[in-house]
């Protein structure tokens, strides 16, 4: 955002956008694995319980 001249965006909104951007990055960063897990859970017919999905150890 810093490269935009100030007459397009005010400094305040630039700062806000930077904040939003970094926040969304954090959300995507930590939300990616749950998202992948959710996809797997939602698209499986028998809806396995969460533990068996999460656990990397071979389930019995």
């Amino acid at each position, binding site marked *: 955002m810093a490269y935009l001249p100030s007459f397009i965006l005010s400094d305040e909104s630039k700062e806000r956008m930077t904040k939003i951007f970094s926040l969304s990055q954090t959300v995507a960063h930590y939300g*990616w694995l749950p998202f*992948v*897990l959710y*996809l*797997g859970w939602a698209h499986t017919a028998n809806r396995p319980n969460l533990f068996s999905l999460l656990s990397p150890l*071979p*389930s019995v």
Partner: protein
Amino acid sequence: MIDYMQQVLRVFETCTGWNRDNSYENITATSENLLNFSIPEGLKCQISNSSTAHTFSTFELSNNTVINGSLAYLYCTGKGVGSSVSSSRTVQLQDAVETYRQIRPLYQNREARKGFEPCALWFGRMYYPSSTLEAMVVKRLSPETQLVAKCLSSLAHTSVLTLYWQRDSGKNFQEWVVSSNEALVGYRVLHNFVGSQSKLNTSLYNNSSLSLGAELWFGLLNTSPACSTTLRYCTHSANTGKPLTLTLSWNPLFGHVSSTYSVKTSSNATISTKFDFNLYSIESNLSFGCELWRRGASRAVPTENAFVQDAVRAPSAQKRPTDTKDMFYHLMAGSSNSQKLLDDLNVTFASSLHKINRERSIIQKFEKSLIDSNFTSVCRLSTSLRDKNLKVQWEGRYKGFLISAGTELANTPLDLPANMVDEPKTASFFKPAKFGVQLQFSM
């Protein structure tokens, strides 16, 4: 050793009819696998599981000066992926390790394209304790196109996003790559020449493929270009049916020429040599690598990995009843009305057709022997004249664990900076520069 997630990705590509070898990035994969195999560092343990037919997970612990861990989850759509991914107990060792890539001719890959449905793969891996995230999405958009997005997200450092757009029409392969790292932009192209050389051959049976590819790269931020062009020729030895691969790469920018020759001398031995030469600085390098496979007791009933065998056998199995006609379709493309001519030809070249059958049977016998043989371990050796190093690796299966252990002996330790002025460069004996063991278990 191929990671479990990488295996899943490869199975996904196979199931969706994507030919991994038909890309410029992997044009020298065979020699790379044999010469520059990666050696694990430290101790690494991987436990993997396929919780459902579409989800896979991996937990990894590595002890490389510090203890690191990672947790990876993968979800993919697409038929048959879950059933095709085999556990470490049952997987064929050829599929679990990076080895000689056998390039199939163009016409043999056509069948897999039928019945396409869009599918996708999501992958995420989080490293601890640094909480760096690797994310990847692979989307099959159409039978010929694929979009790959890879992202390395890190809260402390800069994140990198790389996008691949790939189009594989069988004959041609194109790829655009954009990476946020240094604003790198690249274009890769690979063209497969249809086996028209069979006309020059004494043998009419053509199992060879000739590919020519090129790549162009440009880093926008550092304004540094790179380009290269490569010719690859894969064929089978006419007498023994043993496959061999030749590549010739040339980097016109820096005058780098490298040629490789890899051959599977028998079903349990492969050798590869590589000769590098720089046209400008007249520097040269000769590398040599080989791998030796060890057979276990031959398996009684290959039921567990039926799919893998089927996938490999599928083309030949289908072709068997009408093989001669199939063979000539690729020579005279689109001649539906020339059935008569074909029959004439069949009569004319009856003797050569016998020859074809004989040659093919040799090749197929060799391939079958590879599939049927129950390999238990492989030993690799690689050395390079200029670098004066020796890499040794052992990979194998022990009680359901896939184990990879290797070491690199180098003349000068790698972690010392090479440009110390008063560095004594007369270390005459080899020192281990790298050593590592990797354990992998998957259900």
